[in-house]
């Protein structure tokens, strides 16, 4: 696979921003993840990296950095990256969503705006796989790509002061889940009973950038069951390895 060109910009005293071509693309994301793997192989402690679509923010927690020196180190690593491909395990997660009106308070209005029936909207939302292009904004919030254009709908004119934890929303080219109660302007179509962020677990956020998500329609009874299973810690979302 070809490597994309990168540009490196200073970002304050201890960080740099590495940017790939400005597109939402799975092959660009794969290239970023390859670069991250190559950089991790250098085993330089105290660097942390976070991906968002076509960019990687790299922060050195230890000290201030010399930009030119850092830039050269990154370019060198990027150069070598193609030669040292590591195996990466990525998952497809099936996340249950209850689309009942009780949770999806905007689903009827959204369907109308989109010219679909509620059933069609749910079928379309659950029939696609969405790529995780980044985790940010709130702990455990996934930036998902791959929403069909038939589900693109503007944000609500007035954001809500409180959107309930687990709410599944639609807004322009994005769909996603609010991992905690939060203000928000997305159109809420359902609720996912799975904890996307749990700081008490060894791995507080089971989804990784590069994974895929597919939603599965569940009934309210199943929703309640999953919620209880989650609280007692026995619920594991369904997953398959993508690149086995």
């Amino acid at each position, binding site marked *: 696979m070809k490597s994309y060109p990168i540009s490196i910009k200073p970002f*304050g005293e201890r960080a740099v921003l590495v940017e790939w071509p400005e597109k939402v693309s799975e092959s660009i994301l794969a290239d970023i993840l390859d670069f991250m793997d190559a950089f991790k192989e250098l085993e330089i402690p105290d660097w*942390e990296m976070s991906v968002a679509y076509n960019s990687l923010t790299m922060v050195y927690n230890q000290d201030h950095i010399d930009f030119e020196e850092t830039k050269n180190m990154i370019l060198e690593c990027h150069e070598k990256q193609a030669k040292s491909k590591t195996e990466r395990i990525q998952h497809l997660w099936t996340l249950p969503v209850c689309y009942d009106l009780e949770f999806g308070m905007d689903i009827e209005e959204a369907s109308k705006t989109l010219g679909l029936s509620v059933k069609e909207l749910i079928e379309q939302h659950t029939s696609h796989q969405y790529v995780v292009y980044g985790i940010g904004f709130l*702990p455990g919030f996934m930036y998902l790509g791959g929403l069909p254009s038939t589900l693109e709908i503007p944000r609500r004119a007035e954001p809500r002061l409180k959107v309930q934890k687990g709410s599944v929303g639609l807004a322009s080219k994005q769909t996603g889940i609010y*991992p905690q109660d939060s203000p928000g302007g997305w159109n809420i179509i359902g609720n996912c009973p799975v904890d996307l962020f749990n700081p008490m677990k060894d791995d507080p956020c089971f989804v990784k950038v590069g994974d895929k998500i597919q939603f599965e329609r569940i009934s309210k009874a199943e929703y309640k069951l999953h919620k209880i299973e989650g609280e007692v810690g026995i619920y594991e979302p369904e997953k398959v390895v993508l690149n086995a």
Partner: protein
Amino acid sequence: MLKVLKPGLYTTVQDLGRYGHRDIGVPIAGAMDVESVKKANLLLENDENDAVLEITMTGPTLQFDTDTYISLSGAHIVATLNNEPIDNYSVIKIGKGDILSYGRLELGFRGYIAIKGGFQTKKVLDSRSQFYPVTKSARLKDGDEVPYSETKNYEPKISEVKIEEHFENNILKVYKGPEFSLLSDGQLTEIFAKPYTVSKENNRMAYQLSELITGHSHSMLTSGTLPGTIQLTPAGRMIILMKDGQTTGGYPRILQLSEESISILAQKKYGDELKFKLV
């Protein structure tokens, strides 16, 4: 234990922050004014990352249940121990039952209470900094108890220092942000020629400035943000992200505060004036 008799306006446990979890969207959190925390901890010969209490404008009333030593730093807020005035930047001996309380704010916005050995709340994701939902609560409430270890007969190397406060000036040093090149000559003149004031919208997540500059219609893909990142909204509002700020954002990042300037801004409140200086 330190018992919270009155919580004050916004009192939190903070160390220097929660590092290594940006990739799952966890903000760094940690003390807003790192400079002041380091000084208070240094005076007690603590580790600079030992947890302190961060108080905001209106201080709490607190009662200690075992012997220890504390030092106060940051904003100048009249503080008393059992109704006797105490000063910032001095090592103060605390006995069982002593009550620390606060009065009028004189300078700055955020004060710190460091304690010998640091506050011992449970670490979550490698840090004691309070940030909901990583920690169970966002701040201290009435009746909360904050653990610390007993210290008797400590002989401080230095018991008091005179300090020239870093936050007496109002010039914020900024670097070019990733989208700096989007700024027109007109916008640059607006930003650097005029003073700005802190708006009512200011907290541990972000400081918004009251005055607008010329807006823009640039749209970009969501990308990383840091404490000290200055975002420009399409309407021309400058938003400066602080320690609890989100890890990603979709507005152009025009400027980036120096770390020293984050500590200065942390001590500014609604209506205070600021100037930017490009370095």
